């Protein structure tokens, strides 16, 4: 494993060798190597197979900006080999190949490319002559799906720990090239707190690999100087190996580093993201060994890897010459420099003379027309060079040059992704033949080559310029003049596209798209760049058009007679580079709420069920014994005494002179005259007249109400109350006291006996404390609010205590209740008990259309009031003929419980299975107390009379007959709750 001598190899530690495994073979690399550089150092250039034709692919950018080096790790697909560092024992394989990477039996697909014109799958795979399939896509899709996709997921993979952190900075600089460094230093020196974000392991950007001068000294000297200044400045925080992966409103920047996503808020953001070097389109331009000049430079300078023995440099700017010099210096024989520019367009004569001095052949006005490959297209072995005769046209004769490396410098595309996400726009400069950015939002700035500034000195000034403008926004560096930046350097060749009749002249490497594919898409009528993308899939691959955007725009503009700016590129969307779901999810926060009695329920073996963020006992016992448990618990409540934790019930306090007036406006019933010490049922409708919540209103004093709300509803009820009163300006104080109180409902004939053991300061006798009354007292020494309400239809006390006493309340009640066989019951049981009483549960027995009349709640609505929320809508609804009603129904005594209709089953208009749906079952249970199946259901208005038969269609498809009955089912005269 030979490496170039220092100073080459900035990123590697020559003393630490690391062994790893690729495609089952053992390799050795150096610490700091990426998988790709280590493989290249071992002369292993084949790293992946292409998406469609399974063509061999090797390094293209060496910067993680292409899909050519996507490999499979254990438990992780689609990993960029030129980004991931090797580690001891790393095991990687190629992906998307049938067989092995070296021997992929799907490679034959390449020969069939002529059968696969752009969008071919729209034109085929749906007809199938002489076949039983009407639509043959059913038949083809599985095959095509198997071929599609790249890596494979390990379905048993267990996620590791990822988390997130918020950061706040005055200035965030994205990219640490010369522009970024100069911007960061300028900002910090002016007193700003700066975050400098760099994807690579070291700062410097192009200074770490690019060559700016003949001797190749400038870059290192400058980098060392700037890095020293950064290191000295305490105000600069440096993130390396970190990717700023998006721009979101108000400079909100996700920066991913290690297992953490930092969510950075920047007062000012300076993007110095540089530019992507662009490839030249010619036949077989995708062969391993053909790469961007910058890739070859990175291999040498970062990893001390010799990119090839004999090189051809294909360029459209001066940078190619410097690449040639570097290759020459590093012992790669430079067979020729092919400059697409005509002689007259090459301004620097000394570059030519240096090549001459070094005996490097230079062909100007020429291009590589085709690359020759070794067997199986595994590696480039030479190129055919032809003279350029016009835009994209060449002589019909050329000459061949043998080489194992082709470096391409067609020019650059600004790294516009973050900026276009921020709303910046691209416009094309025909003279410079490049896109440039404009219309940036406030507080977002660009500097360097992303700002179409290419000469090193200009780039440094541009960083300073951007910084000063940014600093001025936050009141810094006000005294410093804003330098103006001059840069004439032309780096883009106007038409580096040389289509070949035999194709394989790739525009998009990710998607195996050739020049003709793009043109043909427009010929088929898909002329808009967006349609071209959608039809041909250009730019839809993992590298999201980093290299295909510019040539595609050129081809589309040319074939639709529109200019480049009109044509544009497809929309840039986050993320900048593919990001793991784990990074986005981070340490997942799933808030939960617990009542103070939670541990007691668990200890008693409750089957818990989620209720919003709460957990509540459904019943006590094992899931499979649901019915028996509910049976036992309900009978206990009916015959002795039971206790249920109702702490999750919402509680809202209204205090002040206008409390009653406010209640009157919010709830349907009237509350002005509600007596102190009494409770009252309160129904809530929204402005559409739909019932959205209900609760019990307690009048504690003239100016003090305590009203309950449903567990899931209270937050919205409270918010609505607050908003209404922000408008009404009534003199009332509204407090959500839901978690300030823990509460239980002690229900059953023996409830009073239990309570009498514990309550000494309150007369619990029916005379002193009748049904629907409200009292305050103490349970032992626990301050408590007592509500005598009848939800379950027995003598019952709802006991609300300050939450800190909640657990103790449960303890003392169970202790005292033991003498009476007290048994806790869950909400499933409570649902059965209230069903026996015909009480509705809002959201179970109501839907998003139910208004009070449909629920027979007219009695709880006072339409004589001047106003309550939803009142006018109710008037309108009541004036219309009703269509349905919620009624109680029962099944025949002997009905088989196992065929019990379920909640959600349908009510039909008549006894024909196909007849109109008139309603649905909202509640249905077997009542052990009544020994029959009972329920609530919406039925058509013509069906709702007591005594009617309704037809229920159950999931088996059978029709069940049920009788509409008067509610309540149990204790029709409501005597039991009054005792």
């Amino acid at each position: 494993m030979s490496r170039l001598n220092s100073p080459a190899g900035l990123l590697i530690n020559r003393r630490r060798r690391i062994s790893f495994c690729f495609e089952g073979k053992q390799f050795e690399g150096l610490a700091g190597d990426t998988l790709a550089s280590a493989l290249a150092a071992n002369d292993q250039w084949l790293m992946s197979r292409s998406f469609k034709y399974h063509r061999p692919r090797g390094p293209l950018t060496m910067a993680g900006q292409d899909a050519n080096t996507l490999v499979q790790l254990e438990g992780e697909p689609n990993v960029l080999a030129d980004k991931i560092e090797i580690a001891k024992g790393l095991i990687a394989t190629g992906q998307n190949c049938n067989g092995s990477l070296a021997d992929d039996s799907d490679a034959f697909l390449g020969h069939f490319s002529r059968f696969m014109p752009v969008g071919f799958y729209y034109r085929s795979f749906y007809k199938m002559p002489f076949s039983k399939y009407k639509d043959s896509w059913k038949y083809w899709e599985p095959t095509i799906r198997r071929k599609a996709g790249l890596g494979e997921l390990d379905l048993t993979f267990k996620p590791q720990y990822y988390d997130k952190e918020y950061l706040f900075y005055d200035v965030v600089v994205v990219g640490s090239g010369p522009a970024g460094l100069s911007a960061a230093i300028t900002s910090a020196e002016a007193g700003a707190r700066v975050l400098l974000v760099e994807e690579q392991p070291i700062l410097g950007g192009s200074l770490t690999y690019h060559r700016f001068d003949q001797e190749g000294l400038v870059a290192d000297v400058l980098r060392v100087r700037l890095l020293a200044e950064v290191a000295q400045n305490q105000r600069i925080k440096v993130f390396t190996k970190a990717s700023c992966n998006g721009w979101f409103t108000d400079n909100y920047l996700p920066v991913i580093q290690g297992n953490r996503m930092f969510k950075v808020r920047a007062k000012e953001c300076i993007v110095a993201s540089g530019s992507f070097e662009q490839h030249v389109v010619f036949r077989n331009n995708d062969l391993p060994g053909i790469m961007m000049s910058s890739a070859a430079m990175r291999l040498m300078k970062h990893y001390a890897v010799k990119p090839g023995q004999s090189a051809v440099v294909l360029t459209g700017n001066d940078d190619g010459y410097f690449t040639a010099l570097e290759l020459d210096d590093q012992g790669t024989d430079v067979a020729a420099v092919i400059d697409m520019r005509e002689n007259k367009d090459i301004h620097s004569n000394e570059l030519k003379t240096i090549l001459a001095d070094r005996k490097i052949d230079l062909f100007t006005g020429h291009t590589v027309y085709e690359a020759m490959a070794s067997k199986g297209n595994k590696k480039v072995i030479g190129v055919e060079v032809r003279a350029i005769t016009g835009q994209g046209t060449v002589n019909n004769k050329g000459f061949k040059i043998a080489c194992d490396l082709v470096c391409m410098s067609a020019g650059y595309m600004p790294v516009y992704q973050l900026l276009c996400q921020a709303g910046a726009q691209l416009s094309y400069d025909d003279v410079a033949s490049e896109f440039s950015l404009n219309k940036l939002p406030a507080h977002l700035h660009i500097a360097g080559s992303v700002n179409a500034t290419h000469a090193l000195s200009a780039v440094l000034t541009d960083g300073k310029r951007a910084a000063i403008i940014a600093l001025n926004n936050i009141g810094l560096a006000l005294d410093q003049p804003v330098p103006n930046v001059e840069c004439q350097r032309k780096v883009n060749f106007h038409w580096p596209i040389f289509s070949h009749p035999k194709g394989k002249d790739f525009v998009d490497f990710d998607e195996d798209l050739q020049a003709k594919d793009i043109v043909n898409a427009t010929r088929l009528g898909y002329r808009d760049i967006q349609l071209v993308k959608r039809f041909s899939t250009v730019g839809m691959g993992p590298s999201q058009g980093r290299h295909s955007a510019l040539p595609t725009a050129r081809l589309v503009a040319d074939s639709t007679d529109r200019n480049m700016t009109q044509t544009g590129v497809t929309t840039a969307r986050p993320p900048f580079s593919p990001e793991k779901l784990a990074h986005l999810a981070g340490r997942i926060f799933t808030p939960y709420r617990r009542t103070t009695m939670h541990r007691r329920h668990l200890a008693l073996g409750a089957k818990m069920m989620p209720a919003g963020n709460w957990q509540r006992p459904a019943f006590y016992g094992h899931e499979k014994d649901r019915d028996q448990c509910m049976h036992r618990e309900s009978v206990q409540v009916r015959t002795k005494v039971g206790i249920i934790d109702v702490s999750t019930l919402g509680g809202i306090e209204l205090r002040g002179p206008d409390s009653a007036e406010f209640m009157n406006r919010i709830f349907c019933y009237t509350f002005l005259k509600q007596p102190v010490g009494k409770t009252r049922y309160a129904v809530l409708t929204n402005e559409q007249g739909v019932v959205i919540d209900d609760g019990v209103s307690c009048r504690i004093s003239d100016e003090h109400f305590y009203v309950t709300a449903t567990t899931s509803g209270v937050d919205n009820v409270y918010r609505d109350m607050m908003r209404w009163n922000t408008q009404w300006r009534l003199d009332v104080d509204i407090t959500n006291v839901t978690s300030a109180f823990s509460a239980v409902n002690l229900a059953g004939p023996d409830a009073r006996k239990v309570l009498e053991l514990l309550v000494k300061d309150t007369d619990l006798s029916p005379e002193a404390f009748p049904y629907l009354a409200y009292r305050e007292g103490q349970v032992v020494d626990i301050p408590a609010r007592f509500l005598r309400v009848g939800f379950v239809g027995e003598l019952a006390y709802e006991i609300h205590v300050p939450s800190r006493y909640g657990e103790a309340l449960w303890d003392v009640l169970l202790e005292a209740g033991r003498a009476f066989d007290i048994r806790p019951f869950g909400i499933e049981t409570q649902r059965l008990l209230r069903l026996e009483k015909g009480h509705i549960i809002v959201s179970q027995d109501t839907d998003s259309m139910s208004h009070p009349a449909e629920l027979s709640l007219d009695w709880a609505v006072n339409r004589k009031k001047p106003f309550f929320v939803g009142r006018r809508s109710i008037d309108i609804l009541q004036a219309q003929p009703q269509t349905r009603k919620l009624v109680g129904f029962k099944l025949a005594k002997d009905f088989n419980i196992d065929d019990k209709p379920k909640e959600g089953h349908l009510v039909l208009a008549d006894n024909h299975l196909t007849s109109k749906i008139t309603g649905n079952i909202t509640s249905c249970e077997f009542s052990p107390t009544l020994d029959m199946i009972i329920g609530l259901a919406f039925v058509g208005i013509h069906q709702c009379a007591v005594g009617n038969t309704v037809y229920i269609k159950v999931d088996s498809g059978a029709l069940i007959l049920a009788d509409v009955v008067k509610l309540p089912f149990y204790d029709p005269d409501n005597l039991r709750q009054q005792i």
Partner: protein
Amino acid sequence: MKIINCPLNGPRNISEFVHGGEVREMPNPTTCTDKEWADYVFYSNNIAGIVTEWWLHAPSGYWFIAVRHTVSDEVIRTFDASELFNQRIDFYMLDSVEAPL
């Protein structure tokens, strides 16, 4: 993430806020026509431009008013609701509809 400047708590991430819909005047429920009421309950100008809206800062339970552009999403101004709602609102029965609403 977008920042909204809460009049009580200062600039905060929008995830701390709950949108409460446009600030709209309720027609007199006792005198308006059914159509006017339906219009109030269901219909909306839903304009692409500057709207005045209710926003709640959830952690502090504070309702305030924001003026926002529904295309640029720029929040132009936020202020305490008392600027718009500065006096008690009452409702009256039909026989006294001339009373102010």
